[in-house]
């Protein structure tokens, strides 16, 4: 089996930290946008329900931010602690976006502090809403900058290699490498989708448990509409990502699709199993669809694994990661579409118990899709850490203590995850929306939202 050397343990620790951070990072990118939208609608419609929504989301958000910040700090330091040789080389080319990212954090942190403590300080509520803009822009910028770094690892450019030294460095060219546009688009879209889906799931859950009120119905409508729109956007971005892969990183697409032989009019393989000698069984086959996914033409040629040297092929199990991600994306699209259709017609109720349970499920599933997507993207880069230049083993630390650190961080994440969940639950259980509505906006607490 696999050997647990420093490089392997470093991979495990990095994967664990990133896998944990990405949950909170996704929320950190997406939820501020939803908060901003809710507050804006509240002001425009002069409807206190939406304002309360923004307020309550913010209160939960701030707890997840804390975990996002500390795990982000962890991964930031771990990059140097676990991958010193990689950072020494790659740092020469790609430190610009990492550095810029810290400014985005600064920007976001400052305005988040201001946003949080000034709800009732302005005469005109729109001024308070203005403070939300730098918060979600800061989150999107963080995502943008860090994703350019990850894109660079997949399609490095902006330097020349002379022996072992890097020359002719062009930081901007490194940042805007071929992988950047599709990756950034897909990461942003999927973060927005996931955040909307999670907020919708919480709302649906409360409607199921308690009685549904106007407040919750409005919240569900807003979040499900957003889920639908962002699901479309995510699928478009995912399609563009696949087309990018076909051009620039064909081995990742080929391994993800179990596409062994270069051919025209390639079939798309969904799920299935692989026998000892790479025979595909039990799959669903869609004729010519892979050619379409790769190049937008049902008869185009798609590069297969036969073109890739054996020792540079990514592991084939990433196929399942890809399929799960896409299926979950389709699920999000389907559920939100169903909700919108049902809410169009008076005769049907969109607050049907079954539909609500499907919506509840969609929240955690969307987060899983993010995890699957990243595993697909990162493992699909194997064996490279810097594609074409440096392999993962060459980048890792040689310190003998990584194993212990892995256990220590595992404990930390279990602790943080558990307490974060408990605190969030308690926060909203002790202070249900109805009570807060009564308390803050007594004039509308019973009946409609409009004044």
């Amino acid at each position: 089996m696999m050997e647990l050397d420093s490089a392997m343990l470093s991979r495990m620790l990095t994967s664990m930290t990133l896998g944990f951070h990405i949950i909170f990072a996704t929320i950190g990118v997406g939820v501020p946008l939803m908060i901003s939208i809710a507050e804006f609608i509240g002001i425009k419609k002069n409807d206190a329900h939406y304002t309360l929504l923004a307020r309550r989301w913010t209160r939960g958000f701030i707890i997840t931010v804390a975990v996002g910040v500390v795990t982000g700090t962890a991964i930031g330091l771990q990059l140097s602690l676990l991958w010193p040789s990689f950072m020494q080389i790659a740092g020469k080319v790609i430190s610009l976006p990492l550095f810029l990212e810290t400014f985005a954090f600064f920007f976001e942190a400052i305005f988040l502090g201001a946003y949080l403590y000034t709800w009732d300080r302005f005469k005109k509520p729109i001024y308070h809403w203005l403070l939300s803009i730098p918060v979600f822009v800061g989150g999107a910028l963080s995502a943008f900058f860090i994703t350019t770094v990850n894109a660079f690892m997949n399609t490095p450019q902006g330097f020349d290699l002379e022996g072992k030294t890097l020359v002719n460095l062009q930081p901007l060219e490194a940042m805007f490498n071929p992988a950047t546009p599709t990756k950034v688009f897909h990461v942003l879209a999927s973060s927005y989708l996931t955040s909307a889906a999670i907020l919708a799931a919480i709302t649906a859950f409360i409607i199921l448990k308690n009685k549904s009120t106007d407040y919750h119905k409005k919240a569900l409508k807003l979040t499900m509409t957003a889920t639908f729109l962002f699901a479309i956007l995510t699928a478009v971005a995912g399609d563009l990502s696949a087309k990018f892969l076909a051009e620039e990183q064909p081995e990742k697409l080929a391994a993800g699709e179990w596409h062994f032989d270069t051919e025209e009019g390639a079939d798309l393989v969904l799920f299935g199993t692989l026998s000892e000698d790479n025979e595909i069984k039990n799959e669903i086959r869609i004729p010519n669809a892979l050619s379409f996914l790769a190049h937008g033409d049902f008869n185009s040629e798609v590069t297969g694994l036969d073109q890739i040297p054996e020792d540079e092929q990514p592991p084939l199990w990433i196929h399942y990661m890809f399929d799960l991600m896409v299926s979950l994306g389709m699920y999000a699209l389907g559920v939100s579409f169903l909700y919108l259709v049902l809410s169009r017609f008076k005769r049907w109720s969109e607050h049907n118990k079954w539909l609500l349970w499907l919506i509840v499920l969609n929240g955690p599933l969307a987060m899983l899709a993010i995890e699957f997507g990243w595993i697909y993207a990162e493992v699909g880069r194997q064996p490279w850490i810097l594609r074409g230049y440096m392999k993962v083993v060459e980048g890792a630390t040689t310190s003998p203590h990584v194993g212990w650190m892995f256990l220590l961080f595992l404990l930390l994440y279990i602790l943080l995850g558990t307490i974060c969940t408990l605190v969030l639950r308690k926060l909203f259980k002790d202070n249900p929306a109805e009570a807060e509505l009564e308390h803050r906006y007594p004039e509308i607490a019973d009946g409609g939202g409009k004044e």
Partner: protein
Amino acid sequence: MSYELIGITVLWIFLYGYLIVASIDFGAGFFAYYAKQTKQDHIINKLISRYLSPVWEVTNVFFVFFFVGLVGFFPDTAYYYGQTLLVPGSIAIILLAIRGSFYAFENYGSKQSNVYMFLYGATGLFIPAALSTALTISEGGFIEETADGVRLLTGELLTSPYSWSVVFLAIVSVLYISSAFLTFYANRANDMDARELMRKYVLFWSSPTIIASLTTFIAMSQHNNEHFEKMLDLWWMFGISVAFFLGAVFLIYQKKNFGLAFIFVMMQFFFAFFGYGAAHLPYLLTPYITLESGVTNDAMGLALVIAFIAGLLLLIPSLILLLRMFLFDADYVKGKK
């Protein structure tokens, strides 16, 4: 000025910024816990949470900025420090993580808990101790370079008087800086009970601070005489630092002008920190990395400097806005908003 000099100056300024804001935060955690244990929490804890709540995330970013910038300007530091600091670095991360998240859980969550308070207080002292290890290592003598990489000489580190005097200095400085700031803040909030309590703490922690500085000096002369000699060449920086120290203690003792007193404290550390830093050059890690050998290429250096200037243009107005809203808004400080 060359990129490496601009780079290290900027980074050192940010590390100094972190030293001040983080000390306030770390010390406040300790005082909050201590006050709770001695049943004085009704006096100061409100004050502490009013100041800390809006700014803790900003504090963290100072730190992130420093280490990301360091690796950016001087990629070699990633290799040497990264390779050797895995254990102390990981411990510091874990402490920071516990502190940051538990602060948020306690403060934004619904319930006060003794365990959170304890973790928040204890980490406030352990983190500076763990982080100061990086500075200790930079003096050289704790790292060994062999054929298969570099490694930390843990035994030497744990038995070195220099290393322990730095730890001690870090902890007492935190308490001193923090209490000086909170005295000022309490005074602004017109909270006389809190002010008197904090004022007692400053006076109490001032003498260990100066004693620890002296012992560190002496230990340094034993450990890295070259650095020590260069610090002696810059004796006037340390002289100014001591003068500001005396001024600050005098003002606080006289109950005069607490704002100025805190500025004096900041100046005291500014001169000592920059005196130490300037004498440290050209080494970033004795004897492996110097400014010249470790610096990144010109293209990246230029890009980082431009990014930095653009970033500042964005940040400074935002920071001023934040300070005006929370630190200088008298009504907010007094708890009326």
